[in-house]
Structure formats: C-alpha cells, structure tokens
C-alpha cells in the first residue's frame, strides 16, 4: 500500500499541490484524472521519489520513501514518464533490458534475459527486438517504454510490494493498443503490485480502474470506485463540462457522454 499524507508543493509563490492525503491499496489499479495543470504529474513525481522539496510524507508499506535510497527505490517501483527523449541508436531489446539495470551489476543474468523475453512476448514486440529504437513510430516507442518499466518490476524481491506508476501512458497509442495496454495492466496487477496511472480518457478509466481520484487546482476533490463517485455534478465541477451519465451496457460501468453545452 502507498500512502501520502498532507503533501504540499509550491513553485515560488504558486501552490501546485495543497495538502494531498490519499491511500492506494495494493493489487488495485488507481487512476488520477483532472484538468491540465491540476497537479497530477507533480503528485506522481513526488510519490515516485523523483521530486524533492515537498512537505508531507509518502510511505510505501509504512516506510517513508525518504529513508529509501534511489537504488532501493529502483528495485521495487518503476515509472513511465509522459515522454522519453532517447536520441541515440539502441535496439528495442537493449532499451527493454535497461529495465533490469537496477537488478544486475555489469552483465545481465539469465533471469534478466528471460524476463525481457517474457515482457517482449507479452507486448507482442518479438518481431522487432533488433530494430533501432529511433526508427520506431510514437506508438511503438511507447510500447517499448512500457515493456521497459514492466521488466523493471516483473518479479517480486524479498516479499516487498511493487509499485508501477504511469504518467499519461496512452497518449500516442491507437484504440487497439490502448485496450491492449490496459488489459496487460489488469493482468499484471497482482496482489503485491500497486498501480497508479494519470489518464485523460474518462471512459477508459471507468472501464478499467478500481479506484478513481479527481484533482482540481492542486487539491484532491473526490476519490472512490467509478460506480460510486461518477456524476455529472462532479464532472461539471472538475472539468467545467456538461455531461450525461448512462450505464455502459457491456461493462456495467458508468459511461460518460459529453454534450456541447
């Protein structure tokens, strides 16, 4: 389980986050939604241990992350950023293997190689393992980066909980791969994995997430299971949009239809 207690963060005088307290249970897929600039990505960077200088406390299984050094963090949590700038020729296989870097010293072990193979198979990347990463399309790059972050926490070490954080992971994926991506995520979500994703598509979120968190102007407005919290009042408050909510006949989850007015 991941907990944040009263996280506050400012840049200059501007308060980006205003006291966020939240709990993320293990084994569940949590999705954070909110308008641009509402502090979602900053929040993710804080609980993933990248951004310092906040007040409040982040704990992984009751342990303050300030007590974990970056090597220890890298062994149990992986992060997929919005964009990765890689300007050098590396093969798909080499990029995926980077996910195993925290686990070996100089040369990958048999286990690392095996894990990479499994992840590559799972994401149907086998046909282009030796392709140059720079020649891939945006969506293909995205899938390779996803493979890399999955490889990083593919197996559990010392019975520690694992954490997977994704910042707008669906951005350059087509509809087919968006679905595949989220299904892989659901399959990967075991009891000892806490998954948190920042996402924009509310209907994908209601379809796949166990728990939703709505951010607005640096505050956590509401959280809970999609069925329990989605309402047109909430969406109008958070996003300033008009909407109608119906039951999705297939998934039985709420389906949001936005109206122009």
């Amino acid at each position, binding site marked *: 389980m991941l907990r944040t207690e009263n996280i506050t963060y400012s840049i200059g005088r501007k308060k980006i986050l205003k006291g966020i307290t939240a709990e993320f249970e293990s084994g569940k897929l949590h999705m954070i939604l909110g308008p641009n600039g509402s502090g979602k990505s900053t929040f993710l*960077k804080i609980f*993933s*241990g*990248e951004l310092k200088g906040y007040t409040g406390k982040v704990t992984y299984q009751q342990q303050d992350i300030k007590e974990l050094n*970056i*090597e220890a*963090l*890298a*062994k149990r*949590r*992986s*992060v997929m*950023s919005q964009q*990765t*700038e*890689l*300007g*050098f*020729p*590396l*093969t798909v296989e*080499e990029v995926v293997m*980077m*996910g195993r*870097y*925290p686990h070996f010293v*100089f040369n990958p072990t048999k286990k690392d190689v095996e894990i990479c193979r499994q992840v590559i198979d799972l994401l149907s990347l086998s046909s282009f393992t*030796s392709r*140059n990463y*720079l*020649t891939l399309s945006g969506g293909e790059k995205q899938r390779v980066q996803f493979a890399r972050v999955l490889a*990083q926490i593919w197996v559990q070490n010392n019975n520690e909980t694992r954490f997977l954080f994704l910042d707008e992971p669906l951005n350059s994926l087509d509809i087919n791969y968006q679905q595949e991506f989220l299904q892989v995520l659901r399959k990967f979500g075991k009891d000892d994995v806490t998954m948190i994703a920042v996402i924009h598509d509310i209907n994908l979120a209601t379809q796949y997430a166990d728990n939703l968190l709505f951010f607005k102007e640096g505050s956590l407005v509401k959280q809970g299971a999609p069925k329990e919290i989605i309402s047109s009042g909430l969406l109008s408050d958070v996003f300033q949009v008009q909407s109608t909510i119906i039951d999705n006949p297939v998934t039985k989850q709420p389906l949001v239809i936005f109206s122009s007015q």
Partner: protein
Amino acid sequence: MFRNNKYFLPVLIALLVIVLLCAIGFGAVPITLTDIISAVQHYISGQPAANIHEAVFWELRLPRVLLCAITGAILAVSGVLMQGLFRNPIVEPGLVGTSAGAAFGASIVFVMGTGIGVAFKSATGPFLVPVFAFAGGMLATYAVYALAKNAKRVSTLSLLLIGIAINAIGLSGTGFMSYLARDPQARSITFWSLGTFSGASWSQVFIVGSIAAIIFAIALSYAKQLNALLLGEEEATYLGVDPKRLQQKILVINTAMVSVATAFVGVISFMGLIVPHILRLLIGSDNKKLLPASMISGAMLLTLADMMARLLLAPAEIPIGIITSLVGAPIFIILLKKFNSIQQGGNSA
C-alpha cells in the same frame, strides 16, 4: 550491423596490432620485424642497442607510437563519455573547451615553469605540467557546462557557441604564453593548436598511459549508468542512477585524462567525434560495447593519422591536427545536420 558479432572486437584488436607495427616500421629510418625482435632481445639481456635501427626503435619510434595510440584511445573514449553526459552526439573535448583550457594550463608551466616550479617543486615535481593542464581543462569545461546549462537542459546551440568562446580564450592564452616565451625551446602556438607527437618520450608514455588505464577501467564500470542517462535525467533516476553525481564523476575523470594527454601533445580536434560516430553506425550506442571499441579504434585511427603526418611530406612533418580536422570537420557537419533534423521532429535513420 555488427552489433552482436562476437568477432568484432578481436578483429579490431588485430587491426590495431597491424597498424601499430606499420607505424613503427615506416619512417626516415625503416624498422623491420627482425629489428624489433633483436631490439627486444638485446633489452632483455641487458645489452645496448646494436645499431641505429634498434636505437631509433627504442628512443623515438616506440614511445611515439605508444603515446599516439594511448592519446587516440583517450580522445575517442572522451568523445563517448561527453556525448553520453550531454546526451548529444556532437560534443567532443576539442569543442567544449577541455583541450584548449588544458593547453593554456600547460603552456603557463612551460613559459613560467621555473618560477612556479620553485614554489610547487616538492609537492608536484614532474607532475607540474599535467596538474596545471588539468586545472585549465577543468576550469574551461566547467565554464562551458555551467554557462550552457539554462534551467534544466543543456542546449546544443549554446553549448557549441559557448565552447567557441571558451576555446578562443584558451587559445589566446596559449598564444600569449608562446609570445612571452624568450626561450626558443618553448613550445610554439602551432604545437598547441594543432598538436604533434614529435616530442614523445617514455616518461610521457608512462604518465599518460597509467592515467588512461585507471580511467578507462572506471569509465567502463559506469557503462550501465551512462546508458541509463541516455533516456534522460528523470528516467535515469527511476532506474536507480543519480544523474548529478554521475555527471560530476564523469566530468572529472574525462577532463583528467584529456588534459594530461593535451599537456604533452597539444590540441587534437575531432577524434572524439569521428570514432564514436562510425562505431555507433556499426554497433549501436550501448556503452558497454561502445567504450572498449572506441578505445581500440581511437588508438588505431590516431596512429594512422600520425603515420600520415610523418610520411606525407617527409622529411617534413605535418601537424597531426590538420589531418584529424580535415577528416573530422565534414563528419561534424553531417552530424549537425542530422541532429537538427531530429530536433525539428524529422524522421531519423
């Protein structure tokens, strides 16, 4: 292309040995394989060199070829390190001020050596030149790095432009030192700006060689971290690498080896650009493979260039920097155009 070819490195090593033998062999006094063997036998049995060929081999040719090979390896490895550090394939020690700063530092000792030597003698002794070169190289590199870095990113354009400015300061400093020098033995501005291996000696081989050996080992141990840094600073952090600390360490070891080599042979440009560029086309960017391959290829190419420098206008000698720049500058232009098209979102190949 040869990415997973296990013969790639052995073939490179074999080529290097051939090039070294050729470089030893060709010259005003030719040296054959039999000369080399008998020279080594005489050395082992404690006898003096039997003839002029053996003497030339020990005193001139071998130290020169070795110093050249080691320097080539240093410059190529430095190119790989700096390109990884700045995440930019068009950076090398000659462009970001390291070499010019080191040359300035070293030239100060050559011109005002006696005065400084008295003050520091006990502490530094024969290491006076390398120490000053390191100070100059460090100062210049750090200045370029600090000035080019605005907010979070190091922009290529400002890096190159500030590099030009700092290089100009370093070069005018060395120029001024050469001008001040009354001693006809003092090194000329040509020496500093274009480099030469004509003054190679065994003590230089030992100093540069031992530093290179230590630093290559350290650099190789950081190969994995350098790879992670290619993904960006944030990504590297998520993979357990502290980018700030890695950058500081790499900057120091890289400057140390380049400065020491520059102190003895002058500024040799573009080696750090040519070698990694060719190798990336052949074996990709994995630093675990790229670093050793650069070491060997750098040694080989600079030895070849020095051979050309000695032989093209024999008995006169061309400064080696003329040859490396002639080959390197076009490659630099190609890289620059390619890099710009990537940055503008064009498709890269």
